[in-house]
């Protein structure tokens, strides 16, 4: 399931949804991305996330479909926020459920690695010096690259 929204989300409720009413789930893996107060640009006052309505949802759905084709999952959820967020606020939730832990853990990491390099979101950091767009990191490309099929 994909959601792109300005509002916060309830991590507990989202994880519970992956197991409610079923008995074939052996494990749920999750990643929650949070706005960190310290950045390369200095102390962060806020972070604004911009996205491309339409394309963002398409790419997230594609990434989720890829995970479902590679691993045997009983469910998955990707929620990504946009708008102005303060340090400590949640940005993104990726969660996967499977009968076995390895599929859940691996696919969860895959989803966040691919999301970071493929889903059209951009971060603007606000510090005392003003606003600055975050530059893409090579380490994120490398993290995504290791999931490429031979």
């Amino acid at each position, binding site marked *: 399931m994909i959601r792109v929204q300005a509002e916060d989300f309830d991590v507990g409720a989202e994880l519970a949804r992956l197991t409610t009413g079923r008995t074939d789930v052996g494990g749920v893996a999750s990643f929650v991305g949070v706005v960190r107060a310290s950045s390369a640009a200095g102390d962060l006052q806020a972070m604004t996330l911009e996205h491309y309505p339409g394309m963002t949802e398409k790419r997230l759905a594609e990434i989720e479909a890829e995970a479902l084709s590679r691993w045997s999952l009983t469910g998955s959820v990707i929620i990504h926020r946009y708008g102005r967020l303060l340090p400590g606020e949640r940005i*993104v939730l990726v969660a996967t459920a499977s009968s076995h832990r390895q599929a859940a853990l691996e696919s969860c990491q895959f989803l966040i690695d691919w*999301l*970071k390099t493929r889903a059209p979101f*951009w971060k603007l950091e606000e510090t005392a010096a003003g606003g600055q767009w975050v*530059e893409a*990191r090579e380490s994120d490309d490398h993290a995504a690259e290791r999931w490429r099929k031979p």
Partner: protein
Amino acid sequence: MKLLYFAWLRGKIGKSSEELTPPAFVRNVGDLLDWLEAQGPAYKAALADRRAVKVAVNQDYAAPDHPVKPGDEIALFPPVTGG
């Protein structure tokens, strides 16, 4: 065609979207960027580093040789930084 600009490309070009009708010789993404760059100093500044400009045609990532045509939605943006 409809052009959309995101993040610092929007800032440098000074608008988030516009309708443009490029000349007939603009057949692909590379042609379009070359033509746009000649439309004024703001475009030239925004497109100076081509490696920093990603393009999507109708919401799919597109390489320089990807064709463009009237009616397309074409987005220009920097490498993505979500998550």
